[in-house]
């Protein structure tokens, strides 16, 4: 009985989070104001963190919050709020862009659908690792060290590149 409730609870939580994620994602897509879209994105990102928590990956969930909400979204909002007012009203201007956007969206959906269909889905009883943080840290610094370092160097390069692009040119 307890087991049933365990699954029931998880299912309820999953549905609730999914509702938030899908709802806010739709809001982010169709919002008239780019600011509203950005704030809707906040709930999407938070919902993603919720998924991680649900899966027992608390460290990953926190990372999601700290990086995406605390870092990327803040920067996004910064950009949105400090740039021109003309961006305030987002609208798709022509039929052509409508069609193009829909086509790209459908293509992505098709790919995802294929992946979902092909995916080797199986039911596993979730094993909650007690020390996600430590095992994660260990993995990052042993097996996946190269990938880890590579991504950090890439980010650094992006950072330097961004600074280079926006620098003030002397005339």
């Amino acid at each position, binding site marked *: *009985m*307890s087991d*049933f*409730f*365990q699954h*029931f*609870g998880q299912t309820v939580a999953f549905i609730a989070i999914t509702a938030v994620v899908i709802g806010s994602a739709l809001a982010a897509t169709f919002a008239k*104001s780019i*600011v*509203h879209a950005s*704030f809707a994105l*906040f709930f999407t990102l*938070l919902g993603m963190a919720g998924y991680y928590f649900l899966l027992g990956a*608390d*460290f990953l969930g*926190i*990372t999601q*919050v*700290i990086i995406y*909400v*605390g*870092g990327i*979204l*803040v*920067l996004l*909002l*910064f950009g949105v*709020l*400090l740039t021109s007012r003309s961006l305030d009203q987002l609208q798709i201007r022509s039929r052509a862009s409508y069609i193009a956007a829909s086509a790209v969206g459908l293509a992505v959906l098709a790919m995802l659908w294929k992946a979902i269909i092909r995916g080797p889905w199986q039911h596993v009883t979730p094993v*909650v690792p*007690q*020390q*996600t*943080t*430590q095992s994660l840290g260990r993995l990052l610094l042993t097996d996946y060290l190269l990938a880890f370092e590579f991504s950090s160097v890439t980010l650094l390069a992006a950072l330097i590149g961004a600074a280079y692009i926006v620098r003030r040119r002397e005339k």
Partner: protein
Amino acid sequence: MQEFVHFLQHDVLARISPPLGALPDQIVLLGAILVGAAPIVAFMAVIAMAWTYGERRIAGFIQARYGPNRVGPEGVLQPLADGIKLLAKEDIAPAGADRPLYELAPLLVFVGALLPFVALPFSEKWVISSMAAGVFYVLAFEAIEVIGIIMAGWAPNSKWSLYGGMRLAAQMVAYEIPMGLCLLTVVALAGTLNLGQICQMQGGAFGVGNWMVWPWVSPFATLAFFMFFVGGLAATKRAPFDLPEAESELVAGFHTEYSGIRFAFFFMAEYAAMYVVCAVATVCFLGGWHGPFREWLAPAAGAPTISDLLGKAVQVKTADGAWFVWANLWGALSVLGKWAFWKPMLYELLGAFYLIAKSFFLLFVMVWMRWTLPRIRIDQVIYMCLKVLLPFSLLCVLGAAAQTVFTDWNLLHWLLSAGK
């Protein structure tokens, strides 16, 4: 989380009446959350109220005046009067405000300030969730507050608010890095992200010998503590880093257009955030719940826990077929007469006292600084973060890492606690 639910099921509910113990996990957890959330909100409100009064009183004395002293004895009921006033005030939204965001912002800020309390220990056992990545969690949920404040800056359609929101976003995002690095220093020394475990290893001689902040434990942690405190001032937008609400420049910054209960939310969130920063500093650097004389009350190895005692006291009665709690009230009350019940209780209470007292001392220092210093300019805030705090906190992390590699932390621990 799981242990907590099991504890509730087996040690509490089942002993009150067996069918209650058979309740499903989720229901128990939900109940615990609902029952547990109320004290947190209450605690947060009490802290905010106490410190609005404390701040004004301290400011008064520093400035050679009295401060609030009218409502109640010595004015202690002032925050209550203010709270009633704010509740009763008309809720005004400026024309042209983005109503949904305007209304959502204070709630987000409030929630953002509330969430860290989940991982924050109040005493050794008194913690809602002793999660593995506690340090990280506390830092992460300040991000929600940032979003809330940006929202509050944008929504009222006021330029001063927008400035305040932007300043705060810049400041908080920048200062999260050195703050995180300072905490990382402690994490490197302690070898864990769990706030409880970090705190647990700081006992030492007389309960004070082994605090992280002491230079003999690690000079890097000493430096990190001061930098964490400065970063905390910036992250909680306290003077001299109070630019987001700089009254002489931005009127009131992001909460310029808020009034009534919405303003009160911002206010409570600010004080709650201050307490969180101070409590984290206390737990990570100042020995948390450790303090003198506490180990005298330490429970012996085989000593029964409170729930054991309670369970036993209740069970004597259940053998007679009496099921309900009130039937066993006498048994439950009889526990109160036992020293074995009071000793662990006092042990925890003393720990909570030490933790909160130390946090309050840091809060006092925050207030004291606010009423001493002028405000820094925004470019200087960023300069200080990136060119002063960041290099030094990196140095601390490196130093702490070197220390853990070259000297065994446990050896040091052993050396220091050898005296007792």
